[in-house]
């Protein structure tokens, strides 16, 4: 077992404090000004997305724990924990995209695409670091992020096409 250094404990404690600070801040934030531009239906859908995201994380965690402990498969639980977060975020994003709850007045499609591009650049930088200097210990996380991004991109493109087609049908009906 690895030694738990004081620095690790301090970093962990600070992370927990930061999380608590964010949660308390979010709870007391003025709800009227913090809707992110979503309308009532989008808020409802985002709530459902959150539930499915949580279930995904729990499911992936449970499967990886079982695989490691019962089946003795070579599964790195630390990595799988982070992978489960990625997959949870993916399920949230996909549900929100297909239920038209992703893009709002404030968080427009353009902003999301810029964020995705920045994320791709970050992953490319991490992958380069792995190849050249082995900055990144485990490439599985970078690969998972890549897969998540590709799936999000494909779904975004597919949803845009479906929306355009649907809009044409609606206009023809009128």
């Amino acid at each position, binding site marked *: 077992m690895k030694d738990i250094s004081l620095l690790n404990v301090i970093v962990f404690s600070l992370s927990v404090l930061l999380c608590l600070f964010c949660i308390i801040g979010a709870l007391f934030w003025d709800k009227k000004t913090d809707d992110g531009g979503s*309308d*009532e*239906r*989008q808020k409802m859908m985002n709530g459902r997305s959150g539930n499915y995201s949580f279930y995904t994380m729990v499911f992936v965690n449970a499967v990886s724990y079982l695989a490691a402990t019962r089946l003795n498969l070579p599964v790195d639980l630390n990595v799988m924990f982070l992978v489960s977060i990625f997959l949870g975020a993916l399920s949230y994003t996909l549900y929100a995209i297909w239920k*038209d709850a992703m*893009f*709002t007045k404030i968080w427009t499609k353009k902003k999301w695409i810029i964020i995705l591009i920045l994320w791709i650049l970050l992953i490319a930088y991490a992958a380069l670091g792995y190849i050249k200097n082995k900055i990144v210990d485990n490439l599985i996380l970078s690969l998972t992020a890549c897969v998540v991004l590709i799936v999000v991109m494909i779904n975004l493109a597919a949803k845009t096409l479906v929306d355009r087609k*649907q809009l044409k049908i609606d206009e023809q009906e*009128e």
Partner: protein
Amino acid sequence: MKNLKLKAARALKDMSQEDLAKAVDVSRQTINAIEKGDYNPSINLCIALCKVLGVTLNDLFWEE
């Protein structure tokens, strides 16, 4: 169940889904979902829709 009354009222005002969505401060997809009967709007949104379209709640949402 489809809300054809909303669609008809919107067409009478010569508004697109996008126009109506902007007027009541929601997304176009939300208006589309209401018209298709996939989403039941809150009373606040119903009132906003009625005000913009110049009709009553009964005109839009009461089923005979």
